[in-house]
């Protein structure tokens, strides 16, 4: 070593050579890159029209998405003939202009029975880990859609064994349907049966995806998409002080989220302290949430956290439609639960023993409340409620 260096009379030359060597070394390997083997997570025959980077929802193996099924489902969704007495369609309780909810406290079925629950908005339903307000066993739309069609408690569309053939005959008599069924279920001829109806309806509802609210554009990097007030509201929403994001977080704005990228599936339900009848933590008898299914006393009053997308369009709020507007909802969370002074439902929901610890109450100034509402308003996807893709096809072809 000593000899080598001595031999080089010019130290600079030595260093330059060395530097070149280092550069040559570093040059090899070329540009770095990030590559993926997503194991089929992006394989689909359907054009989901999702923004880049949004994970795809699951498609059932026995009902993969196709455009033809989606289009058939859309016709069925808006068709009142798909009910026992021919008076009610899905779209009568799920109205596009209202984010596919209905603006009522609770809806009424085709035979006049009142549903105990508020009609849910339909958008990004495909991303919910369970369906409806509180049912851990409803995992697919194919299962869930049987409920409004055939359900008896309450009766919604009121199809039953007695009128089933009548309903199917009505559909078979409609000249628009045979080619739509043929396209949707090729190779079966134009068989019109309930199995096909359900698969098509499920495909339509599954395809109702919305990711174009001001909030979405903001999260994709357009910082101007939210004004200053909504940005402050966003910070509050995602703060440990208000805790909203624990249950309404993520791209789906609900902790009950399922998509193809997930390995660990959670199906959470929460009691937010809406009731505390008799101080025992009870909820009204017709609406006890998860408890109705599991019978586990600690599941009393637990409901799925809904996505807050389009929330400004879908008043009134909560599973029973008992809150008229967003200001009331925020005051409820600020109080850490609901106190009902008189009547059969009297009780201090703040003390509900099954209440989730993230609903704790907090202090909000007037400005904070306005900011939080501005943020909730930014979750509205106006293009979704105006999109002809989801609109009534019978109006176009009367």
């Amino acid at each position, binding site marked *: *070593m*000593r000899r*080598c*260096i001595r031999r*080089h009379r010019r*130290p*600079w030359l*030595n*260093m330059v*050579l*060395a*530097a070149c*060597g*280092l*550069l*040559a*070394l*570093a040059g*090899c*390997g*070329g*540009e*770095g*890159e*990030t*590559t*993926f*083997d*997503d*194991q*089929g*997570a*992006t394989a689909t025959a359907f054009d989901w029209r999702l923004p880049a*980077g949004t*994970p795809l929802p699951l498609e059932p193996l026995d009902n993969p998405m196709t455009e033809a099924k989606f289009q058939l489902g859309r016709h069925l969704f808006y068709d009142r003939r798909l009910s026992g007495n021919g008076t009610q369609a899905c779209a009568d309780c799920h109205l596009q202009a209202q984010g596919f909810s209905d603006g009522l406290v609770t809806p009424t079925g085709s035979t006049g029975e009142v549903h105990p629950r508020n009609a849910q908005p339909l958008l990004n339903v495909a991303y919910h880990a369970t369906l409806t307000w509180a049912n851990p066993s409803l995992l697919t739309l194919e299962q869930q859609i049987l409920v409004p069609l055939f359900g008896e408690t309450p009766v919604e569309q009121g199809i039953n064994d007695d009128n089933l053939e009548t309903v199917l005959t009505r559909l078979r008599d409609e000249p628009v349907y045979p080619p739509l069924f043929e396209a949707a279920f090729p190779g079966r001829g134009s068989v019109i049966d309930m199995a096909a109806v359900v698969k098509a309806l499920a495909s339509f509802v599954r395809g109702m995806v919305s990711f174009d609210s001001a909030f979405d554009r903001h999260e994709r990097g357009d*910082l101007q998409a939210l004004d200053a007030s909504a940005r402050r509201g966003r910070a509050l929403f*995602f703060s440990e002080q208000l805790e909203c*994001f624990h249950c309404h*977080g*993520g791209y789906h704005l609900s902790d009950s*989220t399922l998509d*193809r*990228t*997930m*390995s*660990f*599936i*959670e199906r959470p339900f929460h009691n937010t302290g809406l009731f505390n009848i008799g101080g025992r933590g009870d909820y009204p008898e017709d609406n006890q949430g998860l408890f109705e299914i599991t019978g586990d006393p600690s599941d009393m009053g637990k409901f799925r956290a809904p996505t807050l997308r389009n929330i400004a369009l879908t008043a009134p709020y909560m599973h029973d439609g008992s809150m008229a507007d967003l200001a009331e909802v925020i005051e409820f969370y600020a109080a850490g639960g609901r106190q009902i002074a008189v009547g059969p439902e009297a009780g201090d929901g703040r003390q509900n023993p099954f209440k989730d610890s993230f609903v704790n109450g907090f202090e909000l100034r007037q400005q904070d409340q306005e900011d939080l509402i501005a943020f909730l308003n930014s979750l509205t996807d106006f293009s979704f409620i105006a999109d002809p893709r989801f609109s009534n096809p019978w109006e176009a072809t009367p």
Partner: protein
Amino acid sequence: MTTPVFSILSKRRCRRGRLVAAMALALPAVATAHGIVSSEREDSPLSVGAGVSASHRWDSVIADSGRWQVPGVLMGGEALGSEQGFTLDAASVQLDWRAGERTHVRLDIGSHHAGEIELEEALVGYRLADSLGLQIEAGRMKARFSTENLSHAYARPFSDNNLVYDAFYGGHVVDEGARLMVTPWAGITLGVEGWRGSQFPATAGDDGGARDVFLHWRWQDGAWQVELGTWAQWAEARDRSDSRYTGGHSHGGDSDTAADALRFDGDQDSQGAGARLAWQRGDWSAGLAAEFVQVDVSGTLRDTTRQAALSGDYRGWWLQPELRWRRQALTLRYTKLVLDNHLTGVAGPDLAAVAGLNHAGHDPDQWAVSYRYQLQDGLGLRLEWTRNRATAEPVNYLAAGLYWSGALWPAGN
């Protein structure tokens, strides 16, 4: 030396496991003197030194959100980047005490980021045997595998931390552990360090921890001073999160709930080699420092619902020529990272996006020039220009600052 070096280089040029080539790159380089206080002071058993550096930067690569992410690598530890405006780059006080014949104690209290005082080192050392210079040290310590890991902004040409260390070692490795060092021949130091793992890229506790081994060789002859070194580090992490912006540690950065929820389980193994060479004649001195680091990351990246296997193959290197004349020093630094990642699993693309593992379209690199003028003993003025392409958008900025370092005790040293 030169001939064999380049023959190795040419043969090995484009192979993986470039350790051999990297070691050969133990090129001549300038020593950036780190230790202000020598623990071997003859007269006083106690010596205290201090240093401080403060700069004003006219821009920064840190995103508006305050989060710093080099696209293509999981970051953590104290890699916070240099902020725009006036910042205290570093301030620290070191105390060395020869507690007895064979025992020494070192304390280093400092701040790398404005406001946060940390115990950087608190160690006790014991000389086990004189013959081989066998000594053991334990406590909270900076890893000694590379001298660059010990550098402070006031004692190196640049106020910005080394990009290679920010990307791979969370800024610098400080941890609780023990070290055994031997000097079998004059100038050669062989060391083994074992760490609890409380610092990025490792984690403490079950399945965590880190170890490294290093070999350093120092040699001086007339006008020449050469320092060569090579090391290997093995770090194991379990449930590692990027704690830079969480837990009351926000450092001005927004917490990003998606990124904060990410966890990594796996290993980061790295090997490196570096060299510093200095040459001096009269009023002139020149030097070159360089280092090459090869990193393999393999493990699982996950959040509450998703996971994907991550395999990362990274290279980072920097080259730093310097020229000094009397009170002035001009230094250039080029740093580059080549980051290859492969993710397997349905969640790969999403987790990569959240973790900042997507490649920016160019390899992160940085050019920097520093001009220093020594105003008086220990006190200097520094002007820097940086072209920082460590993130997607290149940023050019100027910085001006002052630095000082010196001995507080014994006075007059």
